[in-house]
């Protein structure tokens, strides 16, 4: 069901990862994403996988819950894997059937690409599992604060992001409800040609957009009623301050990167 999408949902467990400074987690996520492009042997995947596993364990977010988030991107994943599987040229042809050519290089590439994507999605979703949107907003706002000089509305952009995250589950639930209501009027989303199915989306999308606009209007009014007037003159309930554990996290990042570079270079190629 559509409500099962867990990607981007804060999961409160009060772990050490949750209590890290959001800036540390943001930088960590960037470091992690960059690290994915630093290796191309099996060892790199092993280190990355172990690192991610360690962080997930420390975050106390159930693995099952995180893996569920993959469901929503499964199509993308399959597409990438098959794309690589069939279209990678190579010397060792295993299967040659019409235009389908599968090579050992292709298999290797497809597996690595799939792994890379899975690790990437799991890793970056961990950020939103352990950081409330408000913290995330604060983190981005502070990290990108230097852009304010260039008149980039950093605070406003960050606020928009955090509101979007808050309304994702509400709108998903709403979509579910509208779909059911239209099905009760005989609407059919499952059969027919592609065009017919695309047309069948209209009775869902129109009410959904109207509802989203209504909510946006209501929310804007509620925010104004609570004296929101942009970033100027605002104080913070949870101001960001680096603590010793944040320094430890930075050290972990350095160790992680060095290990990746090390194993990739000095261990035998697999």
């Amino acid at each position: 069901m559509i409500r099962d999408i867990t990607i981007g949902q804060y999961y409160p467990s009060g772990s050490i990862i949750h209590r890290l400074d959001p800036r540390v987690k943001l930088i960590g996520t960037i470091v992690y994403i960059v690290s994915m492009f630093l290796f191309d042997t099996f060892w790199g995947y092993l280190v990355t996988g172990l690192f991610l596993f360690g962080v997930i364990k420390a975050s106390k977010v159930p693995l099952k819950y995180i893996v569920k988030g993959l469901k929503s991107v499964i199509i993308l994943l399959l597409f990438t894997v098959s794309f690589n599987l069939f279209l990678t040229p190579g010397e060792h042809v295993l299967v040659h059937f019409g235009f389908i050519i599968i090579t050992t290089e292709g298999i290797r590439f497809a597996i690595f690409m799939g792994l890379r994507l899975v690790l990437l999605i799991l890793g970056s979703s961990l950020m939103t599992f352990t950081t409330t949107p408000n913290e995330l907003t604060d983190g981005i706002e502070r990290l990108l604060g230097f852009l304010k000089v260039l008149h980039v509305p950093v605070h406003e952009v960050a606020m928009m992001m955090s509101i979007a995250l808050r309304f994702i589950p509400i709108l998903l639930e709403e979509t579910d409800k509208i779909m059911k209501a239209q099905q009760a009027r005989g609407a059919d989303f499952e059969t027919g040609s592609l065009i017919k199915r695309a047309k069948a989306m209209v009775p869902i999308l129109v009410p959904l957009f109207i509802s989203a606009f209504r909510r946006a209007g209501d929310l804007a009014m509620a925010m104004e009623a609570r004296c929101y007037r942009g970033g100027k003159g605002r104080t913070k309930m949870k101001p960001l301050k680096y603590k010793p554990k944040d320094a430890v996290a930075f050290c972990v990042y350095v160790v992680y990167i060095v290990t990746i570079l090390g194993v990739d270079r000095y261990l035998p190629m697999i």
Partner: protein
Amino acid sequence: MRMIDAKNLVFEYIRRDEEGNVEAINRALDEVTLDVSEGDFVAILGHNGSGKSTMAKHINAILIPSEGTLYVNGFDTKDEEKIWDIRQSAGMVFQNPDNQIIATVVEEDVGFGPENLGVPTEEIWQRVEESLKAVGMYEYRSHSPNKLSGGQKQRVAIAGIMAMRPKCIILDEPTAMLDPNGRKEVIKTIRDLNKKEKVTVLLITHYMDEVIHADKVIVMDSGKVVMQGTPREIFSQVDKLKRYRLDVPQVTELAYELKKQGMPLPDGILTREEFVEAMMEVRNGAFTR
């Protein structure tokens, strides 16, 4: 002191056609004059489209009157420089709890108002704690609002307003989307705030049983104030209320119907206890006759 003081308030919506020509002018508020004293619990009744929500939006300076004057806590709502003072002194709670909660953690949402007001961090925490305790939601402070019931969400929204330390709270149909238990929770919370924290309350609703404890009831119809008085005074005029598309509590209606059949009952019975007492009188009266 007068918390809200409205004199001859008029608000007109101008509807334009596609070319921008004026198509119609709708008067949403028509010469509204009313006042609310500090510490009062005032209820505004009226059917959908009677102008009661438009009135509420004026008190929060979301809308500015076309004609007439409106003073909130001594500030003129037309004075743009005072807009934040007005919103801080008269906080507003809306109908749909989902569309007014900004943050994904209860305590962060309650802290949103004080943050906007520039309150120092430590005081924000103190205010958040006090407000959540006042509405009985303190143990839910680290929960996600999505996991709460409708009544609980609405209490969080009320705490979010309380944290701004307003003198007055306006609630625009806060229970319309809730189930009976949620409604009870919210009404109890509002009454407690009025009694214990001495907050002036302006409750807009069309549930009759929610207003029987109010100090004053105002009835609106087509943009006008058509009735004003204590709940007893208002609810003794059953026929008039029905003409304004409103209702009365079931007990009141029963007593009214019996009286119409000639039973010697007093006007404006509001509660079960009052009704039973009046019935005892009837029985005893029958004895002495």
